[in-house]
């Protein structure tokens, strides 16, 4: 790529396609399984270095993830924002837009939803919740749009743009909590509790599992339909193919980038709204920590397939829920999850790199 802003001529695009090349469903599943297994095997090393038995740690992790109804409900809640933001990241990557800004988009989405929940609290629940969710989505989309416009107008690579905006977005949460939206007298930077009418209802009465997961599933199915069964999705796939096919077919790179960023930002913003409305019932400092990286890891594990994001996202949700329980029970730090995630990503990326059909330069 000679110039970050302009689309490089096709002759220079040959080997940049390895992230985006399509693999068959069975190969994708095999690849994902292999990557995860390898990641667990390698992660045993640092566990042993810290003087623990990896098998015991993994057993505690498994028990923590699926050991009780409450644990499962907790894990589903954990997975919800991951699935939503990862499905957006997946279609961005498909269109060759490396959006790693879910964290910032999620953060501002949470702020917008919280503002609505606190300021329009006289609205009935049936209106308040959708309005809050939409506000979150719009805020996330606007946030993503900033990075897209910087790329399109000024050639600032979206990786740097979205990364920097992650830090800014997270600080926006701190800023509003120490400013107008903070709870006076609370020891922790948080907003006042939302009125009950803004709380997401639970999916199954008697559990903590909120309706967010249903929204996530709907988003996955809708994105899948959009991507594979509409002219819009076809244009995105053309952009992702990396050949001059897209240009011949009249698909605009600029428009495509703007569209996928808006969709991904919107989904991440809704994820942020769900997190505050369904889990914390208030805005909390740092609630978006690590979500953006999760989203990228999940999208990769799903081989950038919107439908496969659901199982991949659930896997990481259960993994994290299990890790938190493991930390509580046997004192193995839950940051182990990041080790597993990072390694899984690297293995998937290597497999994609090697699997891509070799081309001459």
């Amino acid at each position, binding site marked *: 790529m000679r110039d970050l802003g302009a689309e490089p001529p096709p002759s220079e695009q040959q*080997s940049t396609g390895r992230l985006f090349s399509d693999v068959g469903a069975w190969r994708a599943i095999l690849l994902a399984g292999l990557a995860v297994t390898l990641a667990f095997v390698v992660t045993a090393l640092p*566990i042993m270095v*810290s003087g623990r038995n990896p098998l015991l740690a993994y057993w505690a992790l498994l028990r923590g993830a699926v050991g009780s109804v409450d644990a499962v409900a907790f894990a589903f809640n954990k997975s919800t924002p991951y699935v939503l933001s990862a499905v957006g990241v997946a279609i961005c990557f498909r269109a060759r837009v490396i959006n790693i800004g879910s964290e910032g988009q999620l953060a501002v989405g949470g702020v917008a939803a919280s503002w609505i929940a606190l300021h329009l609290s006289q609205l009935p629940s049936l209106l308040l919740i959708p309005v809050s969710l939409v506000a979150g989505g719009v805020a996330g989309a606007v946030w993503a749009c900033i990075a897209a416009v*910087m790329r399109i107008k000024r050639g600032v690579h979206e990786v740097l743009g979205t*990364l*920097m905006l992650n830090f800014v977005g997270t600080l*926006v949460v701190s800023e509003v909590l120490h400013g107008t939206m903070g709870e006076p007298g609370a020891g922790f930077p948080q907003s006042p509790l939302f009125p009950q009418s803004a709380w997401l209802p639970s999916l199954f009465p008697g559990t903590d599992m909120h309706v967010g997961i249903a929204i996530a599933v709907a988003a996955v199915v809708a994105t899948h339909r959009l991507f594979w069964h509409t002219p819009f999705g076809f244009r995105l796939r053309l952009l992702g193919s990396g050949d001059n096919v897209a240009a011949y077919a009249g698909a605009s790179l600029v428009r495509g980038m703007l569209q996928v960023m808006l969709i991904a930002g919107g989904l991440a913003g809704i994820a942020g709204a769900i997190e505050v409305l369904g889990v914390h019932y208030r805005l909390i400092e740092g609630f978006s920590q690590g979500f953006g990286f999760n989203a990228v890891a999940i999208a990769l594990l799903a081989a950038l397939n919107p439908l496969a994001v659901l199982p991949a996202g659930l896997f990481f949700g259960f993994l994290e829920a299990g890790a938190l329980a493991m930390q509580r029970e046997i004192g193995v730090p839950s940051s182990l*999850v990041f080790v597993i995630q990072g390694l899984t*990503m690297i293995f998937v990326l290597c497999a994609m790199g090697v699997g891509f059909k070799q081309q*001459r330069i």
Partner: protein
Amino acid sequence: MDATVLIELLSATVRIATPLLFVALGGLLSERAGTFAVGVEGMMLTGAFGGAITAFASRSLPAGLLASALSGAAIAAIIALATARFRADHMVTGLAANILAIGLTSFLLRGLFGGKTPVIVLPTLRPLAVPFLSGLPIVGQVLFDQPALTYAAFLLTIPIHFFLMKTRAGLTLRAVGENPAAAFSVGADPIRVRVAAIVACGALAGLGGAVLSLQELGTFTDGMTHGRGFIALAAIIVGRWMPFRVMFGCLLFGAASALALNIQGWGLPVSSYVIQMTPYLIALAVLCGIGRRARMPAAIGKSFTRS
């Protein structure tokens, strides 16, 4: 503005630019050889961690410095293997390495000390006044009364410039970043050159982390690099991939941060969170200002296969 404020601002500029410069010089090597250096954040964090726990356990600062370079290089070796050997995507692999670094450092910090977060307190590197020169007005205090790693970072720019621009090996490295096939045809091994460049980048970025843990703060905390690696990447773009210009890019971001920190002291009604946002906002503004004029190494981000 009186002289003391000015001196304070300028020495804060140099201080803040120091870790950025180590990381940017490393990233420069990696990117000049054709690999995006998104992983520098992780290399820096690992370096800060390796340096801190080694210095803490051995009570030796030199051992800590060595360990920080080695731990940065270790993470870099993983990236090098994945990108150069297995042709994995540079951007996303770098990101994955960053996640891995966050996880490993946080896990080992607790795991090595029996599940609890240890309180690591280290003696920080003290400023060393250069005899005679430090007596100069303003310049003396700003440039010649700094801790050892600061001198090292700025002096290092010279040999790196010399290496890249004046030696045969530097020419080969740049050739691999511009046109690996051509470099290959005259006998260079692009994969080996890239691996070496990335590992060197890791060692330098690791030292950048050591600046934070051993010189500035004297401790290690989770994710303590706070995106400084990414700011260093912006400094590379500002410096158009040239060592001395990159140094000025780092000083520019250092000055911006120093100014933002000082504004707080002047009692202006700006919240500390807005101040914390400024480095990222300034980096974005500068990148937008440069626009499309930045010309990156031609083959950056592209894999090389021998076939």
